[in-house]
């Protein structure tokens, strides 16, 4: 009797810079991360939520832009995998004194790190860093470009609550133009077969949607009745001064998820938000507290998803793209 046993070493997932890095078949890449996340959700629910998988590995968070939530989520994930964590806080460091990006990376690498988690206000910085770094680079948000782990945790949260994303109607509402979350989520949701509608005033949409697998609406009310997931983006005050919207009040009146609008959603529909929420602007305070608002689930799943990503990049030894199952 002979049996062919597959070789799992095929592709390469060295960095996670964008949702497209999970390809060439993005959907199966996402599904692989989500399946692995199940195991880490189980780990997170234990009395001692910690496994030794990344013992001896070092993960550094390099945040050029403040984001305590994302940084804590990554650091918690790393610690639950028994990795050592370092925090290179840029706000007060040499970078402010004119040190070049490349020098910063070389300095950090000289300390011996295995993964660099990068947040930067400029699009593309994680990609640039990946060209210079030997360690794995994980994009924790770059400018308006991408935030791939947010997309993964959002996919996981939807799957957890509604099952398969295929055929689901997802409305992403708000400041799409300036949103890395929107760019990653459009890529991930549509790869998994969901139908995405962007709902925003034209000033808050990207100048061109060529190649985006989305529909566009400027009328939130008409979209809601046929929506499985209403994904709200944070509305920032400075958009007013840039003449993109007349006022936050008018924004709330036209694009905010008010109680009246939330009642238009089907009973099963989820309300999601990447946080931090502006209660009373893009989401009414008590809509955020309804049981179908799964914002806290998103945060909780964020840790497990990031454990899965760190484990895939540092611990599994699995190379990407190949089939694991014999």
């Amino acid at each position: 009797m002979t049996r062919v046993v597959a070789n799992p070493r095929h592709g390469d997932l060295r960095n996670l810079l964008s949702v497209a890095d999970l390809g060439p078949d993005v959907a199966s890449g996402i599904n692989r991360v989500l399946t692995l996340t199940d195991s880490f959700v189980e780990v997170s629910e234990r009395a001692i939520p910690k496994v030794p998988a990344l013992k001896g590995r070092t993960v550094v968070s390099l945040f050029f832009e403040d984001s305590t939530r994302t940084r804590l989520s990554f650091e918690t994930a790393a610690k639950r995998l028994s990795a050592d964590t370092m925090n290179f806080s840029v706000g007060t460091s040499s970078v402010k004194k004119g040190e070049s990006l490349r020098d910063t990376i070389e300095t950090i690498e000289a300390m011996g790190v295995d993964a660099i988690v990068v947040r930067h206000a400029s699009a593309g910085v994680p990609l640039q860093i990946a060209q210079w770094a030997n360690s794995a680079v994980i994009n924790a948000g770059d400018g308006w470009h991408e935030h791939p782990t947010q997309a993964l945790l959002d996919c996981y949260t939807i799957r957890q609550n509604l099952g398969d994303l295929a055929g689901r109607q997802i409305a992403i509402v708000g400041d799409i133009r300036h949103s890395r979350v929107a760019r990653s989520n459009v890529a991930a949701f549509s790869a998994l077969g969901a139908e995405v509608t962007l709902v925003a005033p034209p000033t808050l949409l990207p100048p061109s949607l060529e190649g985006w697998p989305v529909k566009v609406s400027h009328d939130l009310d008409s979209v809601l009745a046929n929506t499985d997931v209403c994904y709200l983006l944070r509305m920032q005050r400075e958009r007013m001064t840039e003449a993109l919207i007349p006022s936050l009040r008018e924004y709330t009146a036209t694009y905010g998820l008010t109680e009246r609008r939330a009642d238009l959603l089907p009973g099963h529909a989820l309300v999601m938000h990447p946080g931090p929420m502006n209660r009373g602007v893009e989401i009414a305070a008590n809509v955020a507290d309804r049981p179908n608002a799964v914002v806290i689930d998103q945060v909780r799943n964020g840790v497990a998803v990031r454990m899965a990503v760190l484990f895939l990049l540092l611990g599994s030894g699995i190379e990407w793209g190949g089939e694991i199952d014999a």
Partner: protein
Amino acid sequence: MPDPDREPNNRSRKVDVDNSTSTSSGWILRGGRVVDRSGDRVADVAIAADGTVAAVGLDLDAAGLGLADAPVLDVTGCIVAPGLVDIHTHLREPGREEAETIESGSRAAALGGFTAIVAMPNTEPTIDSAAVVRQVQSAGMAAGLCDVRVSGAITVGREGKALSPMAEMADLGVRMFTDDGCGVQDDRLMRRALEYSSGLSVPVTLAQHCEVEALSEGGHMHEGEWSSRLGIPGIPAEAEELMVFRDIALARLTGARVHFQHLSTAGAVELVRQAKARGLPVTSEATPHHFTLTHAEVASYDPVFKVNPPLRTADDVAAVKAGLADGTIDAIATDHAPHTAEVKEAPFDHAPCGMLGLETALALGVTELVEPGILTMTQLLAAMSWQPAEIAGIADIHGLPIETGSPAHLVVFDPTEEWTVDPSELASLSANTPYAGRTLRGKVRHTMLCGVPTVLDGKAQR
């Protein structure tokens, strides 16, 4: 070499390069294809010891010309043309000598086949006074690799607030004024600049970098499909087109000459085409990168592709090519803009704009325009030699037909030789070429400045 103290309007002198230190006994170029504004033929070119062309013709008798001792260069298969003229070069000196100096930029120019370049005034300090003009002119003369001409700023400090002393600079030979790096935003100030410039004792050209800052501010690449996808703030094509439109109107209002720098959008090319059809005194240039590269290159987030005006769409590239083909665009200008690796290895939105151009321009013209049949070789050379010489006001010396008595500013290049761009091999002090690893056709063999080789067999001579 240019004489910084020469009198204005000294047009009688054909040659302004000091040849006295040269031990040259003349040169004979055998068997080349001579292309200039008067034609395209196979001929030998004899260069006299005084730096002028002694004779052009088949099977020249060197001894009969008194050039029996002149070394002979076999240039069979090569094109012999008037030296190239770049009307848009950033030499960085004074102020940013770590990126480029007048000497290193002149060397890059010579290697690219150029015998004259026009230095842009956005140095530190700005070239907006006679003193800085003199400084750049004398450094160019000392380098001796190229005829370094100087353009002056339209406004003091390129701040767009007050007119710079154009007459004082024109007296030193400045024929082109520009605030390049930005456009003159104030409509009234631009009108006054045009009116004032038309009354100077010599004809000068105001060259505009067309960009309405109210629309472009905060942008770092072309606004469109790729900027949307990459999450990089964009610069709409209309930011360029609005200023082209305004300046065409001002050219009509004032009757003054306007030159449009680095046209990059289909709309801008069309506006210039219409203005020319109406007989307005406008000229324009385009850069090699705007007829070669598109905004899709930015997907790498490599700041080497960051340039202003930004790389545009494939349709815009096609429009620039069409503009070159139908003569709407008069000149190919490099917008050679060196930046050190330190400043270019920054986040895309922090990195400065600009890319190298001098050493790749001719090859890109051959590869992207002549080989696909968009331009004839004569059209390419017109756009790189005699037409830009006219715009820069130096056509009395540069871009002249290769005939007895004309100054021997020549480029000799092999239009079929392939070479691969290696940033580390470029003569520029910087390495920010977007063409690294690209294989191009067309290689400069020799460059002659006033009969003296600045480049011989592809090697700079000093």
